[in-house]
């Protein structure tokens, strides 16, 4: 068990390190002159004189060889220092920490909605007897996934905020303001959950113990919820990492549409002024979240499913 744990944690760390390397290559080595890129994006109104560019270059260590820069930045990152934002002069880590709570709020709400919507849809679809109804229900996930997230958000705003006047259209004031962003964010994720759960539910319902239960006289609903769902839920758990990453990514669009503060808005602002340190910090943050979520799943799954034998070759 310990070996399994150690291996999993080691893999997680490895992925984080690799994410750092990839983002370093993309952001610092790819553009012709990162300092020029950052300076043209915004320096609080100060003109970028050659002396200032040189000073910036020295400050970011860009006059040193790439390998040295990589090592220096990696060392700083290990200490939690992701640099300073070009645009605002604040520490990148502080900015991300401040932007995280509002995003987590809608991400969590989105997750709740996704689980409820997805599970509800899957359960309903596998429960109903009529084929046409099942087909109709199961056709909703592909539909949900085909619609652009930003468009869904805008249509929801038009309907619920402007026409029906039920919910606020922008901002982060009050609990009601979370509803529309949560629905927008959770829809594609819910579709995925519905798909996965429906598949494993139909597999579970085909198992012999279901026949036994029915022979014993257990009601249909009870079978569905107590027997089938429990066994079907576990495979659905494995997509958690992917789901969490998706929610975080979705916040970029959702926060723009609903004008909410958070990580997504921070990303868009940083990209618009080509603020390389901030963008790298956000990429690493997202990778970390994904990795941690997957690690949690990897650690929890053997505990939840006694059939899994830990230590099997990965």
């Amino acid at each position, binding site marked *: 068990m310990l070996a399994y744990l150690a291996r999993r944690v080691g893999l997680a760390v490895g992925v984080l390190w690799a994410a750092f390397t990839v983002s370093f290559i993309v952001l610092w080595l790819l553009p012709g002159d990162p300092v020029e890129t950052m300076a*043209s*994006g*915004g*320096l*609080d*109104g*100060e*003109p*970028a004189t050659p002396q200032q560019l040189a000073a910036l270059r020295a400050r970011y260590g860009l006059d040193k060889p790439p390998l040295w820069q990589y090592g220096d930045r990696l060392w700083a990152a290990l200490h939690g220092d992701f640099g300073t934002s070009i*645009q*605002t*002069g604040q520490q990148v880590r502080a900015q991300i920490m401040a932007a995280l709570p509002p995003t987590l709020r809608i991400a969590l709400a989105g997750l709740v909605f996704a689980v409820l919507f997805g599970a509800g849809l899957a359960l309903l679809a596998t429960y109903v007897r009529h084929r*046409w109804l099942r*087909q*109709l229900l*199961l*056709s*909703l*996930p*592909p*539909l949900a*996934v085909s619609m652009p*997230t930003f468009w869904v958000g805008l*249509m929801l*705003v*038009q*309907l619920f*905020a*402007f*026409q*029906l*006047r039920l919910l*606020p*259209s*922008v*901002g982060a004031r009050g609990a009601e303001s979370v509803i529309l962003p949560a629905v927008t964010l959770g829809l*594609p*994720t819910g*579709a*995925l959950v519905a*798909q996965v759960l429906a*598949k494993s539910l139909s597999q579970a319902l085909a198992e012999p113990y279901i026949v036994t239960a029915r022979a014993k006289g257990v009601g249909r609903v009870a079978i569905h919820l107590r027997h089938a769902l429990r066994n079907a839920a576990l495979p659905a758990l494995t997509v958690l990492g*992917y789901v969490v990453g*998706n929610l975080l*990514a*979705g916040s970029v*669009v959702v926060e723009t549409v609903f*004008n909410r*503060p958070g990580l997504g*808005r921070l990303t868009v*602002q940083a990209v*618009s*002024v080509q603020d390389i340190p901030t963008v790298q910090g956000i990429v690493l943050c997202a990778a970390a979240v994904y990795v941690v979520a997957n690690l949690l799943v990897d650690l929890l799954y053997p505990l939840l499913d006694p059939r899994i034998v830990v230590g099997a070759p990965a």
Partner: protein
Amino acid sequence: MGTALKTNTSHTRGSLAALVGFALAAALALAGCGSGGQAASGAAAGGPPRPGGTLRFAVSSDQGCVDPQQVSSNDTIYAARQLVDSLTDQDPATGQITPWLATSWQATPDATAYTFTLRGDVTFSDATPLTAQVVKENFDKVAQLGPRATLAKGYLSGYQGTTVDGPNRFTVRFSAPNVQFLQGTSTHSLGILAPASLALSDDQRCRQVLGSGPFVLVSYVQNQSITLARRPGYRWGSPLWAHPGEAYLDQIEFRIVPESGVRTGSLQSGEVDAISSIGQQDEQPLSAAGIQLLARANPGLPFGISFNQSKPVVSDPAVRMALSLAINRPEVVGAVFTSQTKPATGVLSSTTPDYTDGGAQLGFDLNRAKATLDADGWVPGPDGIRAKGGQRLSFGVTFFANAATNQPALELIQQQARLAGIDPRIVQQPVANLAQVQVSGDFDAIWNNTTRADPDILRSAYWSGGANYYRLPPGPLDQQLTGQAAATDPARRAQLVAAAQQRMLTDYDAVPVVELTTVLGAGPGARGIRFDASSRVTLSDTWKAVD
């Protein structure tokens, strides 16, 4: 952002169902999407102003700074203006300069020195008193500010220093006659800050300033909101205001909402009490919903295209002339701007003092535009865009999204210009980069306007000896501009200003298109929103009828 869904074949029929479901969703959406808003509820009650309440004001952009001495974008000025007082005020109706923090003043006949007497009971929000010494420090510091403070530095052009003659008396001296300084003291750019703020760096001041104004800054979250709270004990309001004492509102919350459609919807649904920068499409629905539209024409430079005359293509006067002739101004105004807006008829807006009508040179004549380009050697290419010596007649027009009308206006101008074979490319920059773009000269042409109730704004923008963002070469225009800044005789000044405007129109140094008219939407709850002489809002007299 999508998911790799692998469904099994039992869903083959699901695709038709999906299309059906899709159509159902579409029908639902269309059914839900009617047109227009519903009438606002609640009869508008009259009655005296009452204290209390929070005004929620949605604006379209954030310049990234709350220091009144360093802001130039209207949306941000609305907030910054409430934080400070000025030495003088300007009557919106007559343009007269009236007392405010300064009870009286005298100017020397040659306008090189101004002596002011301050009122004695003013304190800043940190309880420090306003004295002549503090004003001196303010003016001295202006010269050291960065490029964001161009307006303020322009007002103090030729500043030699301030001598303190007594606790409440001081004299400001200039090296050359400076006629427009008095009007400058009434603007937000020379609003007086507390000594504690003067000690901060430019960037620090952008995040937090202390003034003596009717409101104090509570919080500023960039690109999100600016929150102000009433200043208790305030009693030195401008005599032009309805009441000189404490503001009625407890708080004002400026919310940054970049999309005009969302601002309008928020006002209609009552989420906010007032909005700025209304698009034309919002006028009729807002009026129908019982929303009051407050409008005032902005004095100063109209919306138009100014050029970086050090760049190729746009440094050619024939190109600038052809562009101006190709623009159908009434069409642009009619299509994009609100109903009270007028096309530009000169390089100054018609409400500016000493404006002269140059409308004859700003007419629409597509044939003459084409002829001008033909004569200059620009030959139409296969895609309709002209070229000369391998150089395409194409240049970038940079704009900032601090007005909802900027992009649509430029798209229409682009459409019109292409008919003459000119290709203006639209380049959008974040509004926080405004100063940086101007200083660095990283533009071919810029679409913007500047509000000022004094013709000296021409000198601020187009004098080759000043900041000279447009990189104008030295020429006869300079003498006219510096001359009017020194002319103490109003008639002589008007003459010089007229000559300057005429010269600019002849050379097409700027291509003015439309006069900015500030239109605000005020919901039934918001009362007493007033315009100052520069068409910015003063909110000390504002109160909330419904909380």
